[in-house]
């Protein structure tokens, strides 16, 4: 932010020449697609918020539906059962987000250790194999999970055949340890992808520092501890703060595919709750109302984190 200010003041002093104007136009054209993208996918959909203030029912047009003001917002808090359902959903959301943040150091460690591998082809192989799961959709991940862990899946068959268990273990259709299971799945899927950012950060560290440390007789551990990790910490903090701003956005894909009657109570995060109410439960207006509240809370969180960042590190993230 501060740097941007400086440059704008310097260029402000310079007289705008024809050449500069042409250059500006070109730069604008370059950024145009992204502006359009942002507008279309981030701002344009906001007009859908209007549905929260109507008694909307598909397939009617909005003009054929009644305007009801903030009725749906009130419905959310209309009785204690609604509220306790919402609290349960928030509990799940917070738990998944907190667990996500608690495990966010894993990609850092993974990147650091991967960087220590000197055998290049092996390093590339590991990196490719761990990044690939990120590109598999959750639906396919669930198909794999089902093949492995259903009551007649591989895991149960093997355990039964070697005589460890007689009754199949219900891996998928039970609510026990569901948060832990979910975080394991998402770690498996996201570890390699999450490490890419840190690998890039490590590559950006000045090589002279490593050389100097080596000359000074530092071992591997000492280099990791004193150079690598401190150098990528700023990146880590930015990622951490972004994830705090995204506290309420767990996404729903993963929980949607894994949900069933037995784990629903502890797996239903906010995004999934909105889907279950709006799409499955045919109450699009109420679903939209919850969505709006969620966005407001998210924006507030982002502002708080941004403010905290400015105070503590002197840098803002937005």
């Amino acid at each position, binding site marked *: 932010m501060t740097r941007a200010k400086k440059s704008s003041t310097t260029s402000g002093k310079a007289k705008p020449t024809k050449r500069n104007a042409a250059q500006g136009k070109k730069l604008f054209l370059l950024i*145009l697609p992204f502006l359009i993208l942002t507008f279309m996918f981030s701002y344009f959909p906001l007009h859908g918020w209007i549905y929260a203030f109507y008694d909307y029912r598909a397939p009617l047009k909005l003009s054929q539906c009644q305007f009801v003001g903030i009725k749906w917002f009130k419905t959310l808090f209309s009785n204690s059962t609604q509220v306790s359902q919402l609290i349960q959903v928030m509990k799940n959301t917070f738990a998944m987000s907190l667990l996500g943040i608690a495990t966010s150091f894993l990609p850092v460690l993974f990147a650091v250790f991967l960087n220590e591998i000197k055998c290049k082809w092996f390093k590339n192989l590991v990196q490719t194999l761990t990044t690939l799961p990120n590109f598999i959709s959750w639906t396919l991940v669930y198909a794999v999970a089902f093949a492995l862990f259903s009551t007649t899946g591989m895991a149960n068959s093997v355990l039964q055949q070697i005589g460890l268990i007689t009754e199949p273990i219900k891996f998928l259709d039970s609510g026990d340890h569901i948060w832990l299971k979910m975080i394991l799945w998402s770690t498996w899927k996201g570890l390699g992808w999450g490490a890419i950012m840190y690998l890039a950060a490590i590559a950006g560290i000045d090589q002279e520092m490593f050389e100097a440390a080596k000359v000074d007789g530092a071992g591997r551990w000492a280099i990791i501890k004193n150079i690598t990790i401190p150098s990528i910490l700023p990146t880590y903090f930015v990622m951490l703060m972004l994830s705090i701003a995204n506290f309420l956005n767990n996404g729903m894909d993963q929980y949607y595919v894994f949900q069933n009657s037995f784990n629903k109570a502890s797996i239903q995060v906010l995004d999934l709750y909105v889907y279950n109410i709006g799409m499955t439960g045919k109450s699009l207006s109420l679903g939209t109302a919850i969505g709006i509240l969620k966005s407001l809370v998210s924006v507030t969180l982002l502002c708080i984190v941004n403010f905290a960042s400015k105070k503590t590190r002197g840098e803002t993230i937005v």
Partner: protein
Amino acid sequence: MKRKTLRRLTSVALVGAMTASLFAGCGSDGGSKKASTKNSEHGGPYEDFLTIDVYDSQANFQGIQSGWFAKVVKDKFNMELNIIAPNVAGGGDTLYQTRSANGNLGDLILINADQSKLKDMVQADLVYDMTDLITNCDNLKQYSDAIEACSALADKEGTWAVPSEITSGDPTEPSEASDPTNAPSLRWDVYKQIGYPEMNTLEDLLEVGKQMQEADPTSDSGKQTYMFSWFKDWDGATMQNASGLAALYGYRFVSGFALGKSDGTDVQSAIDDDSAYVRALKFMYEANKAGLVDPESTTQNFDTLASKYTDGQVLYSLWPWLGSGYYNTTDNMNAGKGFQTAVIDDMECLGYGGSPEGKMTNAIMIGSKAQDPQRLADFIDWLYSPEGIEMSATQTGGACGPEGLTWEMGDDGQPKLTDFGVQAFVDIDDSLQVPDEWGGGTWKDGISALNYKAVGMTAKNQETGMCYNYQTWPDYIERTTSALKQDWAEHYGVDQDTTAIEYLDSIGKTLTEPGTNYAVPDYSTDIETIKEQCGQVILEKSWQMAFASDEDEFNSLLKEMQDTCKGLGYDQVYEVDKENCEAQFAAFQESIDSAK
């Protein structure tokens, strides 16, 4: 310099490509959908070849219809059917919501007309008024009363929809051909092995189940057998399989959570301690405790279940058509193995009477954006013609197929199955190849995926007096006489030709719901929201109850379900449901009175 120009060009090209790609997804449905190619070879009145999008709420197949039925449609109407099936897509009403909100459900729409659906769709301009299109449709003219009654639901002048399963005759008589829709069906050979123990009430099935599982511990392929196996595909606001058990006592969900007895004597609230639904859940819980329930029940879908029936892994069938449809092949039946309907002393199996004005729960309409509505009206007219009824109908509905391929008229005026027909209907040969002149492919794949019954299951061709359902033909009955059926008939002391429904009816074990044209109204959005929320709670808890680890857990889950639902406003929903249920009862009475 050259390099710079190149770079500039590349960047401009990239910008262009990205901008273009932004808009690529937003165009119309694209050229491929309504690809209309001139078909000069086609001699009929329909010049352009069309691909028709069919939104079909009952279809269990998604994609382009193939095989012999596709050829019939292509030859007659120069079009192909692209079936869009919410059943296959999953997610309940999601597909309807998104497509209807988008303003185009499909060119042909097969969906329920009640619950304000037709009214909403007409109001949202999704349905085409076919008044002028059907003036020359001779087949539809016969059903003008039914069409009028159904279209009246739209609350707007016009001809909007044609209801399904229009049945002439007494609405209080069963419309099913051989078994009631709901009846306890067992692996008869195993039941015989354990000495036909008598069953006085539903819970006696548990003891019978234990003995049957002991008597036949492994399936044909050597897998472990189970008495019961459940599945979740058809769940709505309640657990469908539990409702299936409640139907053995004449109860069904008439509206939302109101469980009505179909003789019009009793309305129950689904979640009450003593409701037929909770009794069914308790039964499922006890069956699971006794080790009678397939552990895969919680995760499997209908297809998996069906393959288990084929292999003989499941010994009880909630509906007669399920067990017998997948296991009673000629080979099995001749070996004395197969499903037959058994008697539980206090049961009142729910069956359905015919509806002279058709069923509002499934109707056919033309979409407002259809390219050639006249052709679609002609197609609908054809579906209601004798030929159309023979050829379409459903996989399990028993339509006899095209004349000349599966059957031919005998000299005595009675229809007879051809060799091909025998292979298709008696041997249930899945890989049966259709001759090339009929379009090739397998018989099974070529069956109409519309899953639409224009007329009732026992309707007759008015000219020839022939029943469209081959299962009632003397020729078919003779061919399927087997050791299994003989044993069943002997045990109950009836004669060989007696169908299960005739027998059960004669001893008063059936409850036939009179056909009516009553259409359940829709909820207001407030009630709908509460209903959906309660439904999600009930469904979730029902499954947990059926698989509870002990009685205490079962009871506490039940209490939790009741408290949460009540807290969400269940009583408001039930009040509306009860009213609807009573209106339905009044309609039953009206129907009975008019039949007299």
